[in-house]
């Protein structure tokens, strides 16, 4: 073991480490280039004076050091650097700049997975393992709440969990390290001390894999922090970050080219320590933290509430809604439901869903979604069913519902709703049309907000008794009101009216739904 130092670089007073060509664990021959540094006008390469193995890097990329400063600890040739014996043999004085017990053994970060296209951050709801535990591939190690669902995260690497850096309840961006695998705690600490630096030292960064995510390891998205430690960010992102007090370095990967942080990434990130500018501006500071009224409680918005807020605000602000209302005679539907129920479990709502599935299957305009300024017509009637919960709502989707029988629809709706209440939302985001029903709570009629990129949503009221005209006389009858909310960019009034008329025909003659 020996510590190598930076030699004189033609009289330069300082040099900045540009990149390491040999990583910890790598064998080194005398004369091999270990590291590249920059002075003000020169690019310098530093060779190893001897054969050996890189045990520990003492001057990480991006660090500016003076000649004579320690660069790297070089172990004996062929030394297994992660073996505890090597650590014991290392003279403590040799590595003054780093924790004495670090062995330079491999440290593998576990990062927040991206469990969906739109996922930008996740809240770590629960750790299933504790530091010190041995982790096997495929083992569920933690649970994440995204803006849409709660997801079990499986390990894609084996090893010993050395350090947890994101405790339960904290929200971090996708790709941010949440824990580190290492045989030696000190090795993990050394990596964490270097800013967690999505460990340049680790040969392969392990990405924790969400169990519902795509098969095979998700590709590691390019990190926004480069090997020299500078943060790649667009000017607009920098400005927004300054305004909002977001630390750019806390965003581990941007969505721009090469991982560059874009303003959208900053908008989605949590503010860190407020910088001077934000603090200096009195109005902003006041607007940022409204005091809770006496007796009031300030509550963090859950990921689900944030998603509801974002999606529905977008919908109301961007979609030209129009509304069509039609009241149907609910008696045939009720009679039909009672008759079917004797043969298999089903509900009134299932009958409505079956009618919707049929009608959506027949009207291609109602299978259209507006995506990126284009209309995409889906081949199947994927019907979303709004499921209300204490903390919000989610919309699992019955895929190709027009191909299912009433019995199958009923079974599928029940299964999806139960799963959703447990935090597992299936086929979310694949719907073309949504049904929302508040009839069971006695609501007679209501107008729903379209769930983008879908183009329509049907709100079902309570089937209730009222006075209806019959053959010129008043009598008591059961009716149900449907309110269709339509995106006028996609569907016009006449088509909407025809759709609703077809719904009425189906519900008043339900025998054809079998």
């Amino acid at each position, binding site marked *: 073991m020996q510590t190598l*130092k930076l030699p004189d670089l033609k009289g330069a007073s*300082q040099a900045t480490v540009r990149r390491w060509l040999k990583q910890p664990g790598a064998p080194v021959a005398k004369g091999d280039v270990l590291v590249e540094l920059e002075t003000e006008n*020169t690019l310098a390469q530093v060779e190893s*004076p001897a054969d050996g193995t890189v045990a520990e890097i003492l001057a990480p990329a991006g660090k500016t050091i003076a000649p004579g400063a320690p660069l790297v600890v070089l172990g004996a040739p062929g030394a297994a650097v992660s073996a505890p014996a090597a650590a014991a043999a290392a003279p403590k004085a040799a590595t003054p700049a780093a924790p004495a017990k670090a062995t330079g053994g491999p440290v593998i970060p576990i990062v927040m997975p991206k469990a969906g296209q739109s996922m930008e951050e996740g809240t770590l709801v629960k750790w299933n393992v504790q530091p010190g535990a041995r982790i096997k591939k495929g083992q569920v190690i933690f649970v994440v709440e995204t803006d849409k669902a709660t997801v079990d995260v499986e390990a894609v690497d084996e090893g010993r969990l050395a350090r947890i850096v994101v405790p339960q309840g904290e929200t971090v961006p996708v790709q941010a390290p949440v824990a580190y695998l290492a045989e030696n705690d000190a090795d993990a600490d050394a990596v964490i001390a270097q800013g967690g630096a999505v460990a340049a030292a680790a040969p392969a960064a392990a990405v924790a894999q969400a169990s519902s995510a795509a098969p095979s390891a998700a590709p590691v998205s390019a990190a926004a922090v480069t090997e020299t430690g500078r*943060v790649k960010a667009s000017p607009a992102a920098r400005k927004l970050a300054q305004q909002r007090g977001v630390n750019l370095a806390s965003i581990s990967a941007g969505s721009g080219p090469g991982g560059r942080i874009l303003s959208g990434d900053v908008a989605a990130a949590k503010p860190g320590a407020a910088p001077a500018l934000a603090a200096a501006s009195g109005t902003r500071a006041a607007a940022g933290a409204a005091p809770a009224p006496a007796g009031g409680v300030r509550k963090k918005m859950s990921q689900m509430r944030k998603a509801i807020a974002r999606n529905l605000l977008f919908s109301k602000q961007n979609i030209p809604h129009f509304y069509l209302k039609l009241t149907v005679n609910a008696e045939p539907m009720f009679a039909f439901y009672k008759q079917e129920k004797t043969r298999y479990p089903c509900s009134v709502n299932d009958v409505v869903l079956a009618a919707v599935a049929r009608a959506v299957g027949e009207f291609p305009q109602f299978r259209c979604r507006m995506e990126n300024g284009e209309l995409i017509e889906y081949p199947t009637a994927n019907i979303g069913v709004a499921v209300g919960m204490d903390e919000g709502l989610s919309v699992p989707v019955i895929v190709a519902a027009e191909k299912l029988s009433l019995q199958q629809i009923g079974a599928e709706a029940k299964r999806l709703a139960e799963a959703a209440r447990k935090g597992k939302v299936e086929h979310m985001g694949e719907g073309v049309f949504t049904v929302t029903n508040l009839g069971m709570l006695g609501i007679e009629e209501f107008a729903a907000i379209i769930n983008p990129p879908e183009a329509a949503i049907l709100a079902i009221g309570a089937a209730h008794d009222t006075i209806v005209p019959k053959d010129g006389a008043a009598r008591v009858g059961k009716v149900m009101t449907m309110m269709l909310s339509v995106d006028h960019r996609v569907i016009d009034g006449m088509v909407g009216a025809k759709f609703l008329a077809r719904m009425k025909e189906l519900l008043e003659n339900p025998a054809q739904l079998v």
Partner: protein
Amino acid sequence: MSQHFDIAVIGSGPGGYVAALKAGQLGAKAAVVEMSHLGGTCLNNGCIPSKALLASAELLHHIQHAGDLGVQVTGATFDWAKIQARKDKVLTMLRGGIKALFGGRKVTLFQGRAVLNGPGKIVVHKPDGSKEEITAAKVIIASGSVPSRIPGWPTDPNLVCTSDESLHWKALPKSVLIVGGGVIGCEFACMLQPLGVQVTVVEMLPKLLPNLDSQIADALEKIFTKRGIKCFTNTKVNELAAGPGGMKAVFSNGQNITVEKVLVATGRRPNTADLALDSVGLTTDRGFIRVNDRMETPVQDYYCIGDANGRCLLAHAASAHGVCAVENALGHARAFDAPIPNCVYTFPEIGTVGLTSVEAKAKGLPVFVGSYPIGFLGKAMAVGDTDGFVKVIRHRETGELLGVHILGHNATECIAAAGALLHQKVTVEVLAETVFAHPTISEAIKESAEDALHMALHLPPRKLLRVVAESA
């Protein structure tokens, strides 16, 4: 009953007139007090007249070298009186332009000398000897600066001139000693040489253009010397006296020189002495009225912009200050933090923005300097103007773009792109990834940004320094 204004501006230079226009644009009732021509130093005794004269001189310089491009011109001469007349016409048109702009923004112009007279009050001393008092809720002092003179030297402005007189010479002298090798001195030297004037420049400091990148200064000195301009750096004028045959100067190196005229270009001092600043409680620091980033003086409702505040003695800085001051005066909160480009209109031109490597090092910033010779560019060769280079200063740890320095054809125009990116605090990578049109001179900016990242394609591979790590 004195007239009352929301904002009164003292001085109509590029700081003052822009401030008044901004005030008018934002709906405020604005007044400007000007004791001389509209436009201040910039329009009357600075930027514009010097550029008009330089244009004539540069054209003559090109004609003198037209043979290099295969164009034969014989018997090219110039008429100094016509050159001056053209310059004067340009100034008249531009003054008219400011007056018209004032009309459009309903800015009231008071012709006369402004003297502060207690809080919110300004007395205008008019040319006819009368006085008029106006009042204002906010006062912006934009009184500018005047050229420094050297105490003890002959005071005849026909013999020992400043830029104020030299720009309006009725006849060209045969020989000139320029004392001071800063921006003004270098521009005059460059302008006078092609017109046949024997030019000698004396600079006390080790290099010409002491505030700019030292390599640029060295290169310019070399170009000047080649053209026959005599440059003495590290040199002082110990004695100066009128004698037979002209002004006789003795340099600190012992050398003697006799010239027809002397141009003192040693700097400018603030024009604040006659404002009665103490009547409102304002003080000065070596004549400058110090302000914060919002252009506020220590006295409430008084702002100071441009040369008079001493932050940056450049016209475009004054204009930017003016907008900032007015916005703050009218209740908008704005701090001034934009980088200010610095341009020298020699040929070749100099355009710089941001930190030099020396300034960066003084701030303790680790930098890497990329550079690219203008002469390697296709455009430079095609137009026959291959002098100069570009330097890009990069923060070694963060990659941030810290400065761009250009010596070369059209540098003052090229620098704008760098200024825009620097203002956005981009990394050098952004500059290197930007596509520049080909063939242009500004391509050298991209090339040197690439060099700063060790990825320049149009340069030979960078020489590596290979060293062996020291064993402990």
